């Protein structure tokens, strides 16, 4: 326990007291024994809060990410729905549909415009009651028959008017004879 180094003890022992007095010794280090507990507590608290905080932060970020994904999907669903509704609205506002609905309610397009000046009460233009007469037909025409159902008519040439035939048939009436006597190969071919 003595701070005196052992080396010194080998010195010859004379004037021991004086030597003892003159010998320099290191001042013992001041040992402040600070209580360790608060420090350890502080560090571990910091560590713990850090870890827990990070964990919580991460969790909340994850949660936000879930929410963002869900909301994004909801937003895209809603915007798709909005677009679909808008499309439907546009379909309802189609001028053709509106005009047909107006027609059904008896509205007509006037033949000529007339103007009423609200300040002077003056009427300009041709004032006449609007009638449905001469109204524009707004319905689409029925589709035409396809060409297969409407073939070109088959035309038969009346046979040459030889003297004998002219005597047989009524004048100016070549058609029946074309069917009855026109038996040239070409006519037969056409009739097929």
């Amino acid at each position, binding site marked *: 326990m003595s701070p005196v180094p052992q080396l010194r003890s080998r010195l010859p022992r004379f004037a021991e007291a004086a030597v003892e007095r003159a010998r320099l010794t290191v001042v013992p280090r001041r040992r402040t024994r600070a209580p360790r507990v608060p420090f350890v507590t502080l560090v571990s608290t910091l560590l713990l809060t850090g870890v827990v905080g990070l964990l919580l932060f*991460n969790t909340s*970020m*994850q949660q*936000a*990410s*879930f929410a*963002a*994904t869900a909301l994004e999907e909801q937003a*895209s*669903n809603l*915007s*798709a*729905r909005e*677009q*679909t509704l*808008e*499309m439907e609205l*546009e*379909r309802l*506002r*189609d*001028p*053709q549909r509106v*005009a047909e609905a107006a027609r059904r309610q008896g509205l007509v*397009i*006037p*033949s*000529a*415009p*007339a*103007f009423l000046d609200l300040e002077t009460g003056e009427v*300009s*233009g*041709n004032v*006449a009651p609007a009638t449905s007469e001469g109204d*524009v*037909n*707004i319905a689409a*025409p029925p589709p035409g028959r396809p060409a297969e159902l409407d073939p070109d008519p088959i035309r038969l040439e009346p046979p040459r008017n030889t003297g004998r035939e002219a005597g047989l048939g009524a004048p100016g009436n070549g058609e029946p004879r074309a069917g009855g006597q026109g038996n040239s190969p070409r006519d037969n071919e056409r009739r097929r």
Partner: protein
Amino acid sequence: MSRQRRLGRLRGSPLFRLRIGFVLIAMVLSVFSVRLVQLQGIDPRSYARMAAEEGTVDVVLPATRGDILDRNSEPLADSVDGLMVVADPLMTAERAPEIATFLSKRLEVDYFDTLERLRVEGSRFQYLARQVPATLAKEVVDDADELGYEGISTRRDPVRAYPSRDVAANLVGFLGTPRKNGAARALAGLEDTFNGYLAGRDGEARYEVSAGNRIPLGDNTVTEAVDGEDLTTTIDRDLQWYAQRVLRQTVLGARADSGHAVIMDRRTGELLTVADYPTYDASEPYDAAEGLYKSAALTDVFEPGSVEKVLTLSSLIDAGKVTKRTRFRVPGSLERQNRTINDYWEHGLLNLTLAGIVAKSSNIGTVLAADEFGRGELRGYLTRFGLGQRTDIGVGGETKGLLPKGEMWTDQTEDRIAFGQGLSVNAVQMAAAVNTIANGGVRIDPSLVQGTAVTDDGTEVGTDHATRNRVISEDAARQTAQMMERVIDPEAGVAPGAAVPGYRVAGKTGTAQRVGPECRCYDGSFTVSFAGFAPADDPRFTIYVVVHNPRNGGGGGSVAGPAFSKLMSYTLRRYGVPPTGTRPSRLPVEW
């Protein structure tokens, strides 16, 4: 004690043990370094890519295609999010009949066709329905999942809607079924000419996911999509609709082949209506013949006939050669270079003023008046009126028309061109020329696009680029308008059917011999037309109606005139233009 020593012997000296340890470590490290060189030195990219693919998602952020709008921002074409429903036959084949029943009920697809697709062997991708609105498609696929049908999924497939169907379809065009990657396929009209302008640029997002959710601090790059721009046209949708119905009735009523109707705002040159008949339904384009996918008013040429006389005569007045009261002796027929020029009605020697020549639409009178022109003068005027040049309003495939030049322009040609034969025009070109007279002699370029827009070939078009050029003097234009008023007069003129009650109307009929599509010669059919503007003393609108090959024997006054009257009356009311209240022109037609 002895056991320890034995162990010590086995382990060898510490030095020996250290060496063995080092050798082992060196071997392991060299293996590592070889692997490091392999990973980093030889092909680092493919490994990086493999690592990135694990859990990285690439998403295309689709750019929304711009709408095509009318002048009041009503959509003529708009885009809707859509999805395609696709099947993986490998997974669906087993329960195909059930799935087909389910889908045919919900998506209005054909049962047998769907059944076949669900069973295709050796395929893992089959279309079941294209361009389904997103809400419906998602609902159906969710329900299918719930019922336990596997192998049905959706992919992006934008829907282009044409809510007004055939209204302005000739101008707007349409998009065909999208390509497999969802890119648009523009097939006609403005959709085609302005494809790049409307389409925008798709964006891209790349992020890491885990269990379907984005990893918060993971890799995340987003290139935002650039949406396409809206194209606002000068078309008035309701007016366009009405014009198409009037035109249809006119063409069908006259048992004609086809027709055009153009309505133009006199002051700005904006085209409120460019109607064609026959046309097609842009929402069902494949039901129509392919030949109809065009704007015939711009792509088809015809000879204008007598409507062109107003250009000839107004030029004559501008050149100071005649006035509206100049007197002419008009014989019953005129021999010119071995060819006889006739009027459409038989007459003896008539004493007509210039106004009378317009009112009665006399070819002979016009030719006599046009004799005053020096060489090349008429052609110069007609060029300045815009004939023989494209209007370039933004519709593809427009024709220039035909204005003979050089050696083709002979005296005989000039006589015929003076009354509107031997040259050809498109309907918009001619409407713009007549509008020049309505606009006090200043020609305004017609436009179809409001503001400015860039076509795919880089041309900027639109009202911002419309130029104005004086063609004839204001006085010449006013005199011509007064003469054109006499055309509508029940006694002096030939087209009382074009009158709008209460308004002063100026107009001109046209009945031109028509070049038949088969023989490329005059085949005896006619093109009848009527061009005019109202109110005559302060014009607001110019309307041009053309009907090709009417078979009811009608002319410009009786076929196109009433259509003009209907359209003008509707337009004036729609835009709230009151009558001017002045007295109509009473110019003498005879002397």
